[in-house]
């Protein structure tokens, strides 16, 4: 089965951060880009703006190192999902992840990462330039 994924096209990104607001609203209930699971990084006075989030990689180092088995695979979507009831906020996963896309959340005291909003990613919805789309990568 071919899974859908977030397709990020940095050439189209204007760094408006609608994605970060949509993400934080979905997961935190308010607009707080500091807690967004997707981040836009800017380089050289805005010459490049690059949206970046968890690729749901197959290795899933975060899942492998978690001492409380708080991270599991959603087989339908291919996402690695954090169970906040099991996470104790030890941050080991944040060190294991080579991409820096699972992060400690100071509001909850747990880690957070992209879960594709359960198959309806709000960042892709919010992106005005199609720099973020949800589909099958070619």
């Amino acid at each position: 089965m071919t899974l859908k994924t977030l397709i990020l096209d940095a050439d189209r990104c204007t760094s408006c951060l609608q994605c970060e607001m949509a993400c934080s609203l979905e997961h935190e209930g308010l607009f707080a880009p500091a807690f967004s699971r997707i981040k836009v990084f800017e380089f050289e006075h805005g010459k490049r703006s690059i949206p970046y989030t968890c690729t749901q990689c197959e290795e899933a180092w975060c899942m492998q190192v978690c001492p409380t088995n708080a991270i599991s695979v959603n087989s339908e979507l291919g996402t690695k999902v954090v169970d906040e009831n099991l996470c104790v906020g030890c941050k080991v996963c944040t060190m294991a992840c080579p991409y820096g896309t699972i992060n400690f959340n100071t509001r909850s005291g747990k880690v957070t990462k992209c879960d594709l909003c359960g198959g309806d990613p709000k960042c892709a919805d919010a992106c005005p330039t199609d720099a973020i789309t949800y589909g099958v990568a070619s």
Partner: protein
Amino acid sequence: MTWHKRVLRVNLSTRTCKVEPLNMEWANDYLGGRGLGTKYLMEGMDPAVDALSEENQLIFATGPLTGTMCSTSGRWAVVTKGPLTNAIAASNSGGKFGAELKFAGYDLLIVEGRASSPVYLLIQDDKVEIKDASEYWGTTVWHTEEAIKEKLGDPQIKVASIGVSGEQGVRYACIVNDLHRAAGRSGVGAVMGSKNLKAVAARGTVGVPVADAQAFLKVVKHTHQLLEDSAGRKDLTDYGTNAMIDTMHSFGGLPTNNFQDVTFPGTEKINPEAMSTPNENDHTNLITNKACFGCTIGCGRIAHIDQNHACIKDRQQYWHASGGLEYETAFALGPVIGVDDIDALTFAGYLMNEHGMDPISFGVTLAAAMELFELGVITSADTDGVALNFGNAEALTIMAEKTGKCEGFGKMLGMGSKRLCEHYGRPELSMAVKGQEFAGYDSRALQGMGLGYATSNRGACHLRHDVFAEDMSDQTGNGKAWPCKTSQDKVAMIDSTGLCLFTTAAWDTDEFQQQVSVACGSHWSNERLLEVGERIWNLEKLFNLRAGLTKADDTLPPRLLETPAPAGVAKGRVAELSTMLPEYYALRGWDQEGVPKEDTLDRLGLGNKTTPVAANA
């Protein structure tokens, strides 16, 4: 909601920071941003004080919609008394700083007093520190912003800072945030410099809640779609604001050579097409477009300068990309000084951002100096040996840098055109209102614009009204007072929401009303919002009257009132201010001297009763 209901008050003289509750009565009367900032300023200081004295206050104000998913929600305002105009200054910026200040949990930041030595303010949610800035003092905006981020080890911190021009009181120094967005007009950066405040750095994790997220998203989806579908929005995205330069040239409203002409043949070398066409070295000026926080338009341009160009050939530090030409920058560093060299314009634009100066006021001041030079009033002995002839691109870049560094003749240019021209005994050559220079629209071709310039509370400004459609279809002053008045009120309201004026490509009052209502969780009628705008306009006027301004300040330079337009659709016309102004005063409910009548003030809740200053918590 969407107001945090928190004001951060910092006194630099006593080095104290405290949080006060936002006066919600005022928030309901003035929304936020420009309006609420003006209310706090009016209640907090005497408008008659010297703008560069420690009695002046400097207010950074977000709006209720700043930091929300509404498109263009990155807007914030700097409100203070302006040293260029000695009038109310309300300068608006985008970028990401304003939203970050809001995310830190504050609606307003009020800076009082003056630090005894250079400082910067570091705001991280509830942690607010006044920190030593001696290592940044004397350096540029670009250096300051990057050095603060590096020192704090946090690239996500957002910084608003001033350059040497602000430190040394250049009358049109800006406050620049996010490297190339600026609270650009009226010299708000010089006020910051007079307080020994080099920068404000903010990082916020409090966020911004809205009343009903699902209802909010439904409205925002609709307003986003309106923008998406708008042809005006698409032009802004594709071409940036500089698309206007061809329109103004062919219309005959493009001020050229210090407003001696109204068309500029060199336009084709600096217009959007020129920006995106490779030159003989296969270098293309424009790289991409860029959005401010939350903006689904993205009118900002990111450009770079041809490395072979003489202005930066030996200066590798300017080979990188940065903010590119927008209409007002292109006009003020181009036609008004007769320059059509796109690389020189772009470089001068870089210097404006790096050193923190308003390109409009700088360019129009340089234009006045060029006319003085060509008239022989000043010579190269005055101008550090530089031939200040119209069209001299090298003179542009040299003088931009000298002004930014406050060196040589740059110190004279830093006074602004009014003081410069008065100094040399030719005050009529200053193209300004209340001391603030005109934007790129000639008042003889655009009569409503002329009335807007003359009556703008912060001095000449193209962003205080919108009579554009009426002006393009009718070259007389007939019937311009009403759209001028009503659009001034509307713009004042929009400037107080935390959203950007450019959304009016697709939105009218009703769209602002829907978004304010759903975000704040209370009904705001269109009428109520427009009344807020009118109240703001009148409060600004009261500030100016108390600052000592009179009807004599609501005027235009003799060149526009007496010398007919030499070309274009308005050829032979002068600005018809003498007929428009009395009509405008009457429509405003002001007397013949431009003073609001008692019943007007009573209607707007601005009557004579003294409003108590907000109780400090």
